[in-house]
């Protein structure tokens, strides 16, 4: 469960004083998490790099607005969610579901192929959800946030978090059941 991170807080405070070095440290810390979150949300790997940089530039510009009454991570992920939501709205979701992933080359090890396939299966499953539902599912299952934290990140009431998760689970479960039936068909 994400807890208050003193190092991140210190780095964010340093950016308020235009400390570029601190900002780059924060960038390095958040790059893996943001790419993973935005990839799940937007489902197009080609735009992720630009989106992540967009988010971190917004963090740099708005650092003075951080009130300190939430975790740095919930604040930054809130910015990422809003940017990701905008990006996802502009895209054709059907196009995203079809082959937006890297090709498997003969140099990939068997375990890397398994990882890529598992990732692709998950993304396909998530592609059946609305962006709002996807955000709740990813923040909960993949990033381990509590439902009050998710409410804060997405700026919605806690009951809305639970409702979106309910529909996300129902849709994912239905998709998994369909795939299982397809797998069993002669």
């Amino acid at each position, binding site marked *: 469960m994400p807890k208050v991170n003193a190092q991140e807080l210190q780095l964010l405070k340093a950016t308020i004083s235009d400390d570029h070095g601190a900002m780059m440290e924060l960038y390095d810390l958040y790059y893996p998490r943001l790419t993973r979150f935005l990839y799940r949300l937007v489902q197009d790997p080609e735009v992720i790099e630009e989106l992540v940089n*967009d988010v971190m530039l917004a963090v740099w510009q708005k650092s003075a607005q951080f009130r300190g009454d939430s975790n740095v991570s919930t604040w930054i992920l809130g910015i990422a969610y809003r940017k990701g939501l905008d990006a996802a709205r502009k895209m054709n979701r059907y196009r995203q579901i079809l082959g937006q992933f890297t090709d498997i080359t003969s140099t990939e090890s068997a375990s890397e192929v398994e990882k890529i396939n598992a990732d692709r299966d*998950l993304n396909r499953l998530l592609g059946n959800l609305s962006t709002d539902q996807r955000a709740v599912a990813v923040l909960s299952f993949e990033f381990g946030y509590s439902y009050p934290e998710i409410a804060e990140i997405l700026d919605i009431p806690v009951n809305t978090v639970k409702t979106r998760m309910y529909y996300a689970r129902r849709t994912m479960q239905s998709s998994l059941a369909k795939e299982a039936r397809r797998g069993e068909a002669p």
Partner: protein
Amino acid sequence: MNQHATVAELLPWFVNGTLNEADHALVDKHLKVCEECQSDLEQVLEMSAMFNAEKSDEIGTQNAARKKFEAALAHTKKDSLFEPYGSSATKVMASVAGVFFIAAVSMLFVPDETTFTTMSRSEPNHATVLQIVFRDGVTEDSIGDILMTEGRILLSGPSRLGVYRVSIGSGPGDELVRKLAEDPRVEFVEVEE
């Protein structure tokens, strides 16, 4: 809501270990006696496992992205009105400010008593104008969502007091005022007299 439904809703956070003590105890106790919720729990665990399977390598190349970010950072000012990828509300406000500036400058060169047209956006005749103030902390994107809805024209704002003036076309505007007043992002809204 009955306990069964409450527990069903909480299962994902029971699985990721983030429930508070009271909720955790509630779910734990109920699961011991409810087969339906046990079955639900299995499904949630399966979903969680999919999310937490070993991941493929990171998407994108951090080094390349980092270099671009570092270059952009060197040219980005703090608290700038213009974000690099700009919110629509910021761009509109900048455009309106620019138009007013051009109109003001143009007026310096206009002969007396000559009919002239300006580039400024005049308020449509008989248009209803709303004055809107947003709550603290509302993002520019949210402000843009409200102000840039089809049929609305941002006339000016924010003023020193944070007032935006928006033309909404002809019509009394009472219904829209009622709707906007219920929006949690809006501090104050009324029809301009």
